């Protein structure tokens, strides 16, 4: 019975994440459209895109590693979703914890690197090297944030963090207890989501969307799915660490949508930084903030 329940949860969590992720993609595109003074795509556009991409057919293949890379990327996220507790579904959150999650989130980028390296397109190679550099840039502040939060809550178990925040009310939310770390997290959120101004690795005008350059059909569909998970994951992690997570969907959903809406809005207002600027920026302000924040919480 327990095992069956877990299985259902494990199945349900990625599906839920996917659906919410679709809505987030839509929201992102609608936000962009609004700032750009236009109407934007119809409501079901994200799902149309994914179904269409999966229906594409080509005989061209870039080899087994390329395919595995994508599977790794999507799989990494699917696994990550099961580690993220959401209202009613804890999944593997008890067993994983924040550190496992942080590692899990590196898998997609590595998987992409594996796959893209195979397709021999220099744009892809440049893109993926940039992506890994960017990951390097934001991962250190990210680890600082995770570390700080774990220290504050006294646990790496995400489910426990939620319950701590839920029990003690808003005053115990991470955002109140460690505002500097929350700010750090907010600053690196666009980078985690791969959004402006930190989307150097996509950069259509420079390297023709970098890693995606040779992705077609199903692979591209995989990336679209991955994007849904990516947005969802970013939203949920931030909410879990700083906004008290959620017990009920009705309060949880607004929180995660609000969280992703902030970097999305910013994304349409700025050009992208150069790679070295990203590194400098990430290792300067968020790291500084993170370290101060850490010092504050650990004092």
């Amino acid at each position, binding site marked *: 019975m327990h095992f069956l329940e877990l299985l259902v949860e494990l199945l349900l969590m990625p599906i839920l994440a996917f659906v919410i992720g679709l809505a987030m993609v839509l929201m992102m595109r609608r936000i962009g459209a609004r700032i750009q003074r*236009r109407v934007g795509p119809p409501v079901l556009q994200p799902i149309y895109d994914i179904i269409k991409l999966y229906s594409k057919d080509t005989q061209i293949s870039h080899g087994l590693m390329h395919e595995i890379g994508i599977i790794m990327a999507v799989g990494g996220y699917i696994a990550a979703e099961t580690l993220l507790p959401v209202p009613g579904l804890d999944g593997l959150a008890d067993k994983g914890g924040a550190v496992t999650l942080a590692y899990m989130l590196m898998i997609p980028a590595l998987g992409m690197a594996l796959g893209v390296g195979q397709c021999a397109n220099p744009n892809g190679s440049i893109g993926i090297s940039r992506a890994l550099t960017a990951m390097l840039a934001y991962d250190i502040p990210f680890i600082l944030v995770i570390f700080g939060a774990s220290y504050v809550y006294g646990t790496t178990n995400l489910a426990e963090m939620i319950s701590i925040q839920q029990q003690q009310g808003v005053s115990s939310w991470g955002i109140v207890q460690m505002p500097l770390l929350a700010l750090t997290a907010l600053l690196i959120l666009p980078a985690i989501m791969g959004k402006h101004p930190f989307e150097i690795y996509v950069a259509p005008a420079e390297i023709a969307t970098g890693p995606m350059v040779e992705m077609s059909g199903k692979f591209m569909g995989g990336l679209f799915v991955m994007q849904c998970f990516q947005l969802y994951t970013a939203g949920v992690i931030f909410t879990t660490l700083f906004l008290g997570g959620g017990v009920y969907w009705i309060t949880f959903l607004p929180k995660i949508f609000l969280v992703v809406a902030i970097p999305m809005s910013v994304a*349409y207002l700025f*050009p992208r930084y150069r790679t070295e600027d990203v590194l400098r920026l990430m290792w300067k302000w968020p790291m500084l903030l993170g370290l101060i924040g850490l010092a504050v919480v650990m004092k």
Partner: protein
Amino acid sequence: MRPENYEAIKQPPSNEFELNFGPNHPGIEGNYAFRVKLNGDEVLSARADAGYLHRGFEKLMEGRLWIQNIALVPRICVPDPVPMEVCYSLAIEELCGLEIPERAQWLRVMQLEMSRLAAHLFAFGGHAATTGMYTPMFWGVADRDLILDRFEELTGGRVYSIYNIPGGVRRDMPDGFLDRLGALLDYLDSRLPDYDSLFFRNQVFIRRARDVGAMTQEQALKWGVTGPNLRATGLAFDVRRDDPYLAYEKIDFDVVTQPGGDALSRNLVRRAELKQSIRILRQVIKHLPSVKGAVRCPIPNPLAWNVPAGETYTRVESSKGELAYYVVSNGGDKPYRVHVRGPSSMHAVQVLEKLAVGSRLEDIAQIMFSLDACPPEVDR
């Protein structure tokens, strides 16, 4: 991507590799290509590859009647077609000794400045997009479209107005046109603060654009840089002021310069020119109603129009720089030779090749767009 990219794998493992930049590449303005040699992110050398838009204009023009070519010339530069028409018409008028009516002169100035506005709005958008910022592009193109609406009303065509004809313009403007143009200018004026805060004064953008593709004034003069790009190196030169044509002598406007010679300076020069164009158009709106009379001087039947033998070199200031037509007539009903000197033939080839060296891969597109290079002018 072009499959030629596969050649990358043939190269020995090293940090140096070649990359085809275009023609199917969003960082390329129009249909144009570059072959860059990179060391990591740094460009070691760049080689322009043009001809994707080559139509043999100059040959085509030798095979058509003088007047038939007015439909052909605007196609030489798609984003900014009016200077092409005007320059070609001016050349024929000079060869024939036609004196065009004053009203036509003012109407031409009006179109030229409208076209400059449209082209500059387009150029900003493109420049912004190369840095990854799409919102100004969306705005710019939408605002440009409002100018195209006015063009449509005036000339019957959105992009290719084909409104100028040797001897003047093809018809007078519709009633109330100037009022609507004035309203459009007011709107554009009201939009400028939006652009400023979002784009021109955006710290991240300034950081991206500063010192990118920088050249000194000496270099610019040596390389044959003209137009806004030359003014961005601090030299106040404008064909409109210094080699005046049409009614520009009677119009009050500033030749704006910037000191940097880089992408940021070029961008700021264009922004200032946007304002100057609005200023010129305001003067046109004020002055035009007082200029009465025909909009075209009598011209011979186009089917039987022999332009007297001779040659002329006419220049106008397009939004991209110095545009010139060298027209030779042997007294026949068709041009004997037309040579188009598009400003971009310098900017997109030599200047870009030189500026790219030592720059970063991510800046190539930005340099190209900041030079406002227009490939069809190169290819013709």
